């Protein structure tokens, strides 16, 4: 471990005590470089059944981590998908065995730009190889092997988690009995890339960032990273949702202050979200992960396009989109449905009507959670019947 004595010291200590798999098998990345003997941090919830027929793999989104539900031991906050996963929830951990791994490039224990580069004995920073969604997914294959799971009952994920899932199903067409990609896209649009570039430029414009070398000094480009997070937050909400939540309401004041303080509630909210984020996330990780998202274009990996990507699918799909999501729109999601249909895959699709935007999948959205539960429970029954035969 680095001898860091500042901001991340306590975090690194805590990260020593979480579940990690040492992946010994070399992984050749899309960029051409190879990583080996790297840590993959993960968490599991519930109990794996004797027949190993109740495993659900969750892929996390850009700023997520392996701590899906319960209390995150590093941040001491609730897991990011506590609305959907847990005892008695839509993904019921009394019934199912839920697995989630921190993506490589991340900063919650898996190999990322904050880890020590064995060649230099110093944190990687920008020497960390550029990774792709496919690299993230392939790194997680070892985890399933380690847990002894040949076939998952289900794999799911929203946003970037959904992209990983599409890649997972394409790369491993028979590793999941069912799959639920939520609010995602098979490739990043110009607008998606533009928003990510805005986030990256905000980080890079912070002088503390220093070409990613801030990691050597154990500081964090807080201001840039906070702005990057604010950009994200705006894209996760719908216009209507934002208007209803904040409108022009003022923050704990009767009138304008005629200053540049956070007069409006929406400003205060964004600042709070931005600065809360810098406490738990690494700026270089944001660069690497957003890059992976931008490079993602599943159809590009196949000559025949997206239809070819889903050829010979045995997995049963349920695609879910949210009507007010402008980041990964209903059309983006429907294009996946159309490709799956054209490839002859077993696919269901539901559009949840809501004002809550892209964030809906993380919120208590009853129609969404009901659909999720109905699908998983019916798949469990089918999967068990199939295994019996």
């Amino acid at each position, binding site marked *: 471990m680095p001898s860091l004595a500042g901001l991340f010291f306590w975090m690194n200590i805590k990260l020593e005590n979480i579940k990690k798999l040492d992946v010994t098998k070399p992984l050749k990345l899309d960029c051409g470089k190879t990583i080996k003997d790297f840590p993959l941090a993960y968490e599991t919830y519930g109990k794996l059944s004797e027949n190993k027929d109740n495993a659900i793999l969750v892929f996390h989104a850009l700023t997520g981590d392996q701590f899906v539900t319960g209390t995150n031991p590093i941040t001491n906050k609730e897991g990011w998908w506590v609305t959907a996963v847990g005892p008695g929830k839509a993904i019921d951990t009394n019934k199912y065995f839920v697995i989630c791994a921190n993506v490589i490039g991340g900063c919650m224990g898996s190999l990322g730009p904050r880890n020590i580069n064995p060649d230099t004995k110093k944190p990687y920073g920008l020497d960390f190889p550029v990774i792709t969604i496919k690299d993230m997914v392939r790194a997680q294959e070892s985890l399933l092997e380690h847990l002894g799971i040949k076939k998952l009952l289900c794999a799911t994920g929203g946003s970037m988690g959904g992209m990983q899932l599409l890649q997972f199903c394409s790369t491993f067409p028979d590793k999941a009995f069912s799959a639920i990609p939520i609010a995602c896209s098979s490739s990043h649009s110009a607008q998606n890339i533009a928003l990510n570039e805005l986030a990256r430029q905000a980080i890079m414009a912070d002088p503390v960032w220093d070409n990613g070398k801030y990691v050597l000094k154990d500081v964090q480009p807080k201001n840039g990273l906070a702005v990057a997070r604010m950009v994200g937050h705006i894209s996760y909400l719908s216009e209507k949702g934002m208007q209803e939540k904040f409108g022009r309401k003022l923050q704990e004041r009767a009138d304008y202050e005629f200053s540049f303080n956070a007069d409006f509630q929406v400003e205060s909210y964004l600042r709070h979200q931005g600065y809360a984020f810098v406490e738990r996330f690494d700026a270089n990780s944001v660069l690497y992960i957003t890059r992976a998202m931008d490079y993602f274009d599943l159809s590009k990996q196949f000559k025949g396009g997206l239809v070819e990507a889903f050829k010979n699918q045995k997995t049963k799909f349920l695609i879910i989109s949210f009507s007010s999501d402008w980041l990964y729109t209903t059309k983006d999601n429907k294009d996946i449905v*159309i490709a799956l249909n054209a490839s002859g895959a077993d*696919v269901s699709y*539901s559009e949840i009507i809501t004002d809550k935007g892209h964030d809906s999948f993380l919120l208590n959205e009853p129609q969404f959670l009901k659909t999720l539960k109905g699908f998983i429970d019916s*798949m469990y029954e089918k999967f068990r019947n199939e295994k019996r035969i």
Partner: protein
Amino acid sequence: MKNLEMKKEFKVIADLLPNNTKVLDVGCGDGSLMYLLKKEKNVEVRGLELNQGNVQECIHKGLPVIQGNAETELHQFPDKSFDYVVLSQTLQAFYEPEKVLKNLLRIGKSVVISIPNFGYWKVRTKLLFFGKMPVTKTLPNTWYNTPNLHMCTIKDLFDFCDEKNINIKTAVGVNENKTSIIMKSNLEIKNLFYKIGIFLIG
């Protein structure tokens, strides 16, 4: 009563379809027909449904369903990707039934359509004797709130297929407790006495 008719209708449709085929149910509702086809005929089913509650119902039953509008979203299904496409009692509710029908014939090797028959004698007498738009058990809505934009009779659909060179493989008249094969020779009489017409075309 409506329910009984529906059960009968689904039974007739199921009888028209061979085992182990691939079927798309357009406007599949809560999945009752898909469930029946899967259970009784080992059919590989898919559904298309607009209503979110119905979509959820299908998903709970483990039936694959795509939420969408048949009027605008049939293009997503490739040519001849299904052995049969079923359209139960919704043809008359589309803005452009002809266009929808063409799409169904493109997607399916054959198509099964059922229609509420506007030529049924009770419907005719309501209009003839009372001078009002008919409201019956099969057609329960009033003129101002009916989803049915293009009502037709068994005879109309028969003639339409003739005109457009669409091959009618089988046509069946359906009441609660009775079914009967419709042919050109008995068209007038069946058109008068059957509430629902089911056509296997393509």
